[in-house]
């Protein structure tokens, strides 16, 4: 067990040192993207539009299940750096958002307040391997303040051609220090074909993840 903890911690550190992320938060110029992320903690629906190759603007609706709050926010994503090599690509992103949080949780009675969040993330991928890391914070006036980190390692069991069904096996380590389970392992299967991406995951507590992305 100790060995497993050391390995996971090592992976987390290595992931931090290397690069990472999931689908690009900045699309091609003029492109729209719709994303839905659903796990044990939250359900998120977001859409963004990329007016330039470096930026995208979007709107997010998020529901946190345990703390029963809704977030509606505008966000901006910025591609700080992209490194294109012959057989790999790396990206470094900065993200930020500002919106309204609403909750009925415990003593809160339909409370509304401002919420802000920020993130930095980076990724590196080839046709066969993938690694990503993201750290983000969320801060509201009085209801919540959260810091999260997520790292992923993935590989493609086969290399599919353009337009075919692509499959990735991924291991994700999710850190939320204020939770009882500060580190959670998540196993994710990623499929994509054309402009549709689906992720199905299950974590160590048998909670499921379902993510979907559509690019227009």
């Amino acid at each position, binding site marked *: 067990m100790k060995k497993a903890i050391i390995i996971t911690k090592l992976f987390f550190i290595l992931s931090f040192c290397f690069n990472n992320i999931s*689908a*690009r938060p*900045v*699309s*091609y*110029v*003029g*492109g729209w993207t719709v994303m839905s992320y659903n796990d044990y903690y939250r359900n998120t629906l977001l859409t963004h539009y990329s007016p330039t*190759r470096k930026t995208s603007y979007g709107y997010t609706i998020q529901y946190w299940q345990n703390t029963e709050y809704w977030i509606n926010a505008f966000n901006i994503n910025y591609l700080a750096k*992209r*490194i*294109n*090599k*012959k*057989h*790999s*690509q790396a990206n470094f992103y900065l993200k930020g958002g500002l919106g309204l949080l609403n909750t009925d949780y415990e003593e809160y009675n339909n409370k509304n307040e401002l919420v802000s969040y920020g993130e930095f993330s980076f990724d590196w*991928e*080839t*046709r066969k391997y993938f690694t990503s890391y993201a750290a983000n914070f969320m801060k509201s006036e009085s209801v919540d303040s959260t810091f999260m980190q997520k790292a992923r390692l993935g590989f493609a*069991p*086969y*290399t*599919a*051609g*353009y*337009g*075919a*069904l*692509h*499959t990735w*096996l991924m291991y994700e380590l999710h850190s939320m220090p204020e939770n009882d389970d500060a580190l959670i392992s998540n*196993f994710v*299967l990623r*499929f*994509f074909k*054309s*402009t549709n*991406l689906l992720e*199905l995951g*299950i974590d160590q507590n*048998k909670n499921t993840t379902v993510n979907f*992305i559509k*690019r227009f």
Partner: protein
Amino acid sequence: MKILVILLSSLLLTFTTHATNCHKEGGHSHDEVTTNGLSSGEITDNFININVNGMVCDFCAQSIEKVFMKRIEVKGINVDLEDQKVVIYLEKETDIEDTTISTIFEDAGYTVETINRNS
């Protein structure tokens, strides 16, 4: 254990699907794609070969096909992720400037290495 079985079954299913896809494509081998292949539209005698850097993700590369196929002079396109090559098939006696091609690729997130025309 049950979870492991589900994951392995899903993986097996995707391998089977991939094998089926390869079979359906029959004849579109790696070499054919770079010379005569087609991702969308139709093949013409007037084409441009573009070598690209960073085009590793199919999901993201779809934008290249989408943007080029909207242009009136473009009749077809082939995207080859393995060799990082894109072939643009054009209407007879039309052309797209190198700077325009480079801009389209950079807007989609990639870097153009070389551009070669068949004529």
